[in-house]
Every structure is written in C-alpha cells, then in structure tokens.
C-alpha cells in the first residue's frame, strides 16, 4: 500500500502548478504563453501519473475507503479534513485527471487570448474536481463542490461564445441556488447528528421525518448539477457558449458530481426518503429521456444536440441509481464514466470542425467523409458509443441500467427503452448531416483532416470507449464491492424501517450471519 497522502497530493498538485505559473512566468508574449501551457500540461500529466498509481494500488476487493487521510481542520466544530476513495469515487478521480490534460492539449491552439489565465483556471478546476470526489467530510465536499463554480464561470464567461455572459450567469446562479439549499440541509444534518463525517453519516441515517426534508435539500443541488428535467435548461446554454475544453470538462466531469452526490449522500444517508421519492425520480428521468431526446432531434446546433443528449443520458443514470439494484447502480456508475469519455470526445470532435469553419450549424457541413476520413471514423465510433451499440462502453451502461430498472419498475423501464431508439435517431441524424449528406458546402469540403495533435487526444478516448465495451470488468470488478455494500446497507435500513418485503429479510439474515462469521 501507499504510505504517503496520495489524494492530497493529487488534489493540491494542480494548485502548486498554479503557483509555479504565477511565480515564474512574466509577460504575455508568445514565449510566456508557451511556457504556461507546458507547465500546465506537465502538472496535469504528473497528476495523471499519480492517478494511475492510485488505480494500480487500489484494492478492488474491498468496499472500504482507501488511502484515507485525516487531520483537524475546523477544530472548534469538530469538522475534520478527511479524504479517501472507494470503488465508486476512485474512477471519478481517474476520469478527472484523465480529461484535464486532454482539455489542456485541445486548447493548445484554440485559446489565443489570456492563455495564462485559462491554464490557471483549468488547473484550479482540476484541483477542485479531484477534491470533490475524494472528500469524506461533507463540509469539505461542499467547499470543493461549490468552488468548481468559480473557474467554470470564468471559463465560460471569458473564453465563451457570443452569449457567454447570459450563459455563465445562468450556470452560476442555477447551480449556486441548488448548492446553498444543500448547505442548509448539511447544517441541519450537522445539528442533528453532530458530525459531518461522510462514512459516519452513511452508517447512521437520521430520523425518517427529517430525511424527507434533507433529501429534498440535497436533491435540489444534485438535480441541478446532474442536470435533471426540468432544471436542465442551463446546460444547453452553458455548453453552446463554453469553449471546447470547457464543454469537455463540463460534460465529462461536472455533470457526474450530481450523480456522485446521489450515490454518496442521498441513497446511504436518507434511504427511507430515497425509497419514498423513487417514483418522482423515475418519472422525472423518463420525461428527461424522452423529452430531451425529442428536442435533440430538431436541433440545428451540434453542441446543443450533444448537450440535450447528455441530459437524456443522465436521465438513464438517475434511473439506474434510484432502482437501487446491483445492476442498476453498476450501470449508472459505468454509464457516467462512459458518458464522460464519449461526450467529452464528441465535444472535442465538434471543436475540431468548429476550429476550421467557426460554425456549429449542421447545415453548414455535409459530405466531409471524403476529405476527413480519419475524423469520420473516430466520430462514427463515438457516435455509436453514444447510441449504445454493443461493443462500445455506452452499451454496457445502458443495458445494466435498463436491467436494473426493469426489476424495480417495468413500465418505467419500457418507457426508458424508447429513449434508446430516439438516441439512435438523433445521433445517426447528426452523423448523416455532418459526415455524409449532400456535398454542397464547398468550405466544409476543403477542411483538412485531423492533425496529429487532434488525433492523439481523441485516440485514448476512442480506445477506452472500445476497450470498456468489450472488457467492462476492468471497471465493474472494482466498483462491485462498493456497490454491493451500498445496496446491502440500503436494503438493511429499509427492512429495519419496515419498508421492505420479507424476501429481502432473508438477505438481512444472511448479512447478519456473514457478519457473525466474520467476527468469529
């Protein structure tokens, strides 16, 4: 095992990179900009190296938190600095450290003004993202979770498109409103239990009548972040206006914070409330899947289309999470990771053609398969991954989720399955209009194919999409113990509250026997 604080190092390494940039690089000429980019890139690559090291040393057979660090922080309140990862959060940390260097490279030439500030914003963002997934104290979690807003607000607002001001405000205020309600919930939780330590809270849910209110408070935050219908409207705006790298990180990691929050807070801490509100979440998710898929069908803007598809995919994730079955939860986590890779890569693909033609309108493209064959191939794999074709990672997630949801609610699962068809419809339409279609736009047909840089940043994402599609156990094996524990604890609490059928009481008896066996 590792005997140094790897999670803190990963969290604060990007900030150290920021300090290096601030301390050593002066001026804003080309040389300074290039140095800044290299410092940012190497910092993020170092962080990635630590991430890989963490993955290798992670004990996949355990459901416990690993690499745990504790020290005092807000001492008078007994709130500590507590970090650690389990099977679920470890992969989100990996996703964050993997996408950041890709974003930095993708912005290499695309960002021309205020390069230094852009790189600083990205490193700060990376630090907060890692912190969010590693934090095992609710207040610490909140600090990172909400801190993310600052760099993202600036990334959209400074480097974004024409309506960037409106979009950045909308993004910031929507998410902030959700978050502050969670803060109140958090304080109530603290007042009732006297602790903000996440593992402690997970093990000891609060009184049932309080759970409903707290669940709603946390739901306000995570549903906006996710985003769920009807509070999803900030996402298309933010995506359209954000620079490519911003969209990638937004779709790739920031949306996952909502799902992670459900897994880390809502289900284990408020099990009875979660059971009570399951139908609400199911219906919101189904509406999100069908409604946003239909909206995606009529979009003219490539980024908007992918943004709406993100909302639909996140609808699947919430279904999986609140089905609270092993398959559903594994599928939800898998789908989040896979969506992080695929939608991130899709936004990069949009960025590639946007850099050449400076438009995202579908009608301005068409027939580019002849002049951009490599691009067409990569785009196709990603598109099919997003559709959920077997052999890509998208399939595994969706299939597991539908399987889990089917056990929980047949009607919902059936309705959600129509979303898969609609998903295929809008993604194939997107692909046809951009890559095939009539060869009418001369400027689109004269675009050069992917350059080396673009090819090599897309390559790992495409490779992972395929690799995880045929070999999903690489992830599912490591998350399985944590998921199993989550489901087990959840059912145990429900049984104790008398909300569950006898058949699962047998499970409870088994569980108790197991525990007794371990003690002996």
């Amino acid at each position, binding site marked *: 095992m590792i005997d140094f604080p790897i999670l803190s190092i990963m969290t604060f390494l990007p900030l150290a990179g920021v300090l290096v940039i601030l301390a050593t690089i002066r001026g804003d000429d080309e040389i300074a900009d290039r140095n800044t980019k290299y410092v940012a890139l190497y910092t993020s690559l170092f962080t990635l190296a630590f991430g890989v090291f963490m993955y290798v040393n992670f004990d996949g057979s355990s459901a416990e938190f690993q690499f745990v660090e504790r020290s005092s*922080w807000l001492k*008078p309140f007994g709130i500590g600095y507590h970090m650690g990862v389990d099977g679920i959060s470890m992969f989100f940390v990996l996703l964050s450290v993997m996408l950041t260097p890709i974003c930095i490279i993708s912005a290499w030439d695309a960002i021309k003004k205020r390069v230094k500030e852009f790189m600083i914003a990205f490193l700060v963002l990376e630090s907060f993202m890692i912190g969010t997934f590693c934090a095992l104290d609710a207040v610490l979690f*909140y600090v990172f979770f909400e801190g993310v807003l600052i760099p993202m607000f600036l990334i959209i607002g400074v480097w974004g498109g024409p309506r960037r001001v409106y979009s950045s405000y909308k993004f*910031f205020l929507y998410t902030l409103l959700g978050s*502050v309600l969670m803060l*109140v919930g958090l304080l109530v939780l603290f007042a009732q239990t006297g602790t903000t330590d996440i593992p402690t809270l997970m093990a000891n849910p609060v009184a049932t009548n309080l759970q409903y209110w707290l669940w709603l408070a946390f739901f306000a935050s995570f549903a906006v972040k996710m985003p769920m219908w009807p509070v999803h409207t900030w996402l298309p705006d933010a995506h359209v206006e954000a620079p490519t790298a911003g969209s990638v990180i937004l779709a790739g990691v920031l949306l996952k914070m909502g799902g992670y929050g459900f897994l880390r807070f809502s289900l284990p801490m408020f099990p009875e409330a979660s059971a009570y509100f399951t139908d609400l979440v199911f219906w919101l998710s189904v509406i999100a899947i069908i409604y946003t898929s239909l909206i995606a069908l009529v979009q003219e803007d490539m980024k908007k289309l992918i943004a709406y598809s993100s909302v639909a995919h996140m609808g699947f994730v919430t279904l999986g999470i609140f089905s609270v079955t092993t398959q559903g939860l594994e599928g939800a986590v898998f789908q989040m990771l896979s969506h992080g890779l695929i939608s991130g890569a899709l936004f990069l693909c949009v960025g590639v053609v946007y850099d050449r033609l400076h438009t995202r309108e579908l009608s301005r493209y068409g027939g580019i398969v002849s002049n951009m064959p490599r691009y067409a191939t990569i785009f196709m794999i990603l598109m099919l991954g997003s559709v959920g074709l077997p052999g890509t990672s998208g399939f595994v997630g969706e299939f597991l989720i539908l399987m889990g949801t089917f056990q929980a609610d047949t009607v919902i699962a059936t309705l959600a399955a129509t979303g898969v068809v609609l998903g295929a419809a809008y993604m194939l339409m997107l692909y046809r209009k951009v890559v095939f279609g009539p060869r009418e736009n001369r400027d689109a047909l004269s675009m050069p194919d992917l350059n080396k840089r673009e090819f090599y940043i897309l390559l790992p994402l495409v490779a992972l999409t395929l690799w995880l599609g045929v070999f999903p156990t690489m992830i599912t094996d490591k998350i399985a113990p944590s998921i199993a524990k989550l489901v087990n604890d959840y059912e145990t609490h429900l049984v104790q509250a008398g909300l569950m059928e006898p058949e699962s009481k047998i499970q409870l008896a088994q569980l108790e026997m197991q525990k007794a066996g371990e003690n002996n």
Partner: protein
Amino acid sequence: MVDFNLVPLLPEIFLAITAMGLLIVGAFHGNESTRAICWASAIGVVVTGFILLGLDWNERHVLNNMFVFDQFSGLMKVIILLGVLASLALSVRYIIQEGIERFEYPILLLFAGIGMMIMVSANNMLSLYMGLELQSLSLYVLAAIHRNSSKSAEAGIKYFILGALSSGLLLFGISLIYGFTGSVDFDVIGRSLMSVETIPQGVTFGLVLILAALAFKISAVPFHMWTPDVYQGAPTSVTAFFAMVPKIAAMGLLMRLLLDPFAAAFDQWMQIIYFVSLMSMIVGGFAALVQEDIKRLLAYSSIGNMGYALIGLVAGTAEGAGAVILYLFIYMIMTAGTFAVVMCMRRNGMAVYKISDLSGLSKNSPVLAYVLLVLMFSMSGIPPMAGFFGKLVVFNAAVDQGYYILATLGVITSVIAAYYYLRIVKVMFFDDAVDAFDKELPLARRVVMLFSVVFVLCFVFKPSPFMSMSLSAADSLFSNAAIMSAPAGDDAQSLEPAAG
C-alpha cells in the same frame, strides 16, 4: 467587584493622549503636517494594539462597574484597531489626491476609534452613550470633511440629523429602562429583569427604542435609508472607514447589550432582530441589483452583510455570538481590500465611481481586477474563500437553534446577492476595455490589498485559530451573563439569590 484600577483602560488612555498630542502638533503646524500626523497616528494605533495585547485579558470591572474589560471587548478592540489602522493606511494618499488634506482627519479617526473602544467595553448605559456619541460626532465631521463638495456636505448633514434622531431615541429608551429597572448599570438591569416573571411593557418599549437606535448605527433595515447617500457622498476613504469599523463596534455593543443585561428578554428582542436581519438581507440583496454607482452598491452590500451577521445574534448562543465576531472580522478584511481597489478608480486625477468604469479592468490593470475578483467571490460566499466560512458559521449557529426558515431565506438572498457581485466580475472580465485608470498605486494601498487577498485565500487552510478565538471571546460574554433562554429554567433560579 468595584475596582479603581485604571490598567484595563490603558489602551484608551494612551490613544486619547496620542490624539490630543497630535492635535496640538497639528494646530501649530497646520495642514502641511497632515502626512506626518497620519503616520504618527498609525504608529499610535499600533502601540495601542501592543498595549492591549500586553494586558491581562481576564475579566475586570473598573470605574464603578462602568467599564468592563474581558476577552470579548479585548478581541473587539483588536479588530477595531486593525480597522482604524487600515483606514489610516488607505487615507494617507487619498486625502492628498482629493485635496482634503486636513490635519484633523487622522485625529478624528483616532477619536472615533476611542469612542468605539469604549462602546465595546461599556457596562453601563451612560458609558455606552458616551462612547457612542464620541464616535458619532467624529463620524459626522468626517462625512462632511470635503467642504467644497456639496455631496459631502449633504452626506454630513444627512448623517448628522438622522444620527441625532437615533441618539435621541437611544436616550429615551435608556430613560425608560432606567425608570422600570431603577438603574443604568448593566449588571443591575440584568438581575432585575431576571427576577421578574414577565418583562414589563415599559422595558420592552425602551428596548425597542434602543434597538432602533443601534439598528441605525449598523444600518440595518428599516433604519438603513441614510447609508447609500452617506456612502456615496462622503470621500471614499471615509466611506471605507464607515463600512468597516463603526459597524463592528456597534455590533459589539449590541451583542453585549442583548446577551448580557437583556438576556432575560430574549423572546422580546429575538423577534425584532429576526425581522431586522431578514429585511436587511432582502433589501440589501434586491436594492443592490439596480445600482450603477459602486459606492452605493457597496452600501447595500454592507446592509445585506449586517443582516447575515445578525443571524448569529438571533441564535442567541455563545456559538452564534462567536459566529458574529468571525463574520464581522472577515467582512472587515474583505471591505478593506475592496475599498482599496475602489480608491484606485481614478482617471486623469479624477475619481470615478460608475460600475461601468471598471469595464475591461482585467486588461488594463490585471492586479486590481484579480484582487477585486477574489474579494467579490468571497463576498458572495463562494468557497474556498474566507467569506464562505463567515456565512457557514452564522448559518450553522441559526440552524443549530432550529431557525431553519431564516437560514433558508438567508442562503436564498445570498444567491441574489451573488448576482450583483458577479456583475462586477463580469464587467471587469467579460466586457471590452475602456480607458485605463491612472497607474498610481501607493504602497499602503498595495499592502492593504495584499493582506486582504492573502487572508481571504488562505483562510481555508488554517481556519481554526480564528474560530477558536472568536468562540472563546463569545464565551466570555456569556460567563457573567445570565443564562440564555433555552436552558433558562434551573440556572435562572440559582442566580436569583445574588439578585436579592
């Protein structure tokens, strides 16, 4: 308990002697000596601070129980002195730039400082009133110190008339309290209120009047009307001082008054503070949305901030009082930095105040823009900045006592407030650049900015010393206070023999 020892008063005495000595120097040398007097005053404040730190911080009552020195007043005085020091540092160059280089200026700041130090140490209605008036009279003059500017004169007059009215209310309230309890001594008032079953109507009435007067001093809604006008009219260095220090002193006074002698009337004053706090947050949030002048915007922001601070007082616990102290301290540091930037808003030697004047500041003067960026995010309470922890502790204190609705409305207004803080960031970073500001950036201003930003950014790494300090100061406020409402039952009775 009566003690004629003057040692706990040493800081005030030293500062008063310094101020009067400098007054004589100024009278002989005229306005040319302003700069020297400013720096001498700053040194005087620092020395006073060291004297204060050198004192024994255990609770002492002196001057016939009119003056109390304990951890609470000690900490508040340190904060006040820091604020005065920052104001002096911000003023030195500014008053020269604005042509209001009068030697009385730094001396008035010192006198106001002495008044405030007496306020937070007052243990008697009379010493309270004296401290408050010493402070107020200095402030009236400061607001109007720009004699050639009609706006400054207007601000001074407005502040004076309304201030005089509030002093009148205060005196009327005090006389009612005196009539119904038979004393102006805090301890006696506290004991006599503790010994009665129900609080007499007259006392409640007097309390309302006193609260109205103090709400005026901290510019809480509905007694906030003067704030935007005075903030706008007064010279910016004076506005900075108004925004930082007098409010802290008045809040300190309010805390001692409500949590010590009027602890038994918790149910009465809690409703008032609840209402005032809520309204301040709402009005501060909404009214600031439409402001075009940065000083008016900061005025409404300060109104809102007082609302948040009062939440901690509503809780009525030591934890809440500690939260208020921490909140005010963080607020003061953020305000100092913000005003340091506002003072740099000058074009061709003329000060400008429109928010739109900040357009594209990030291109012209990136340092100023980044300082203001950090401070604005901190003001809106976004972690990991210090401002978030200020809000966290006050909301925590409220939630801890079950004030869920107040806390929820509080966080919602903080989102509204975030909008106008973001607007400043937006103007600086997203809008196209206009003409650059004058490049001049005096050393003192730079130091204030640096200190403020470093504090705001680094607070997250080591928050506990500040939290423990504010909590233990608040505890000292409760040690001699009658026990608060919630656990009133047993403890209140055990106190009664002492009352008899």
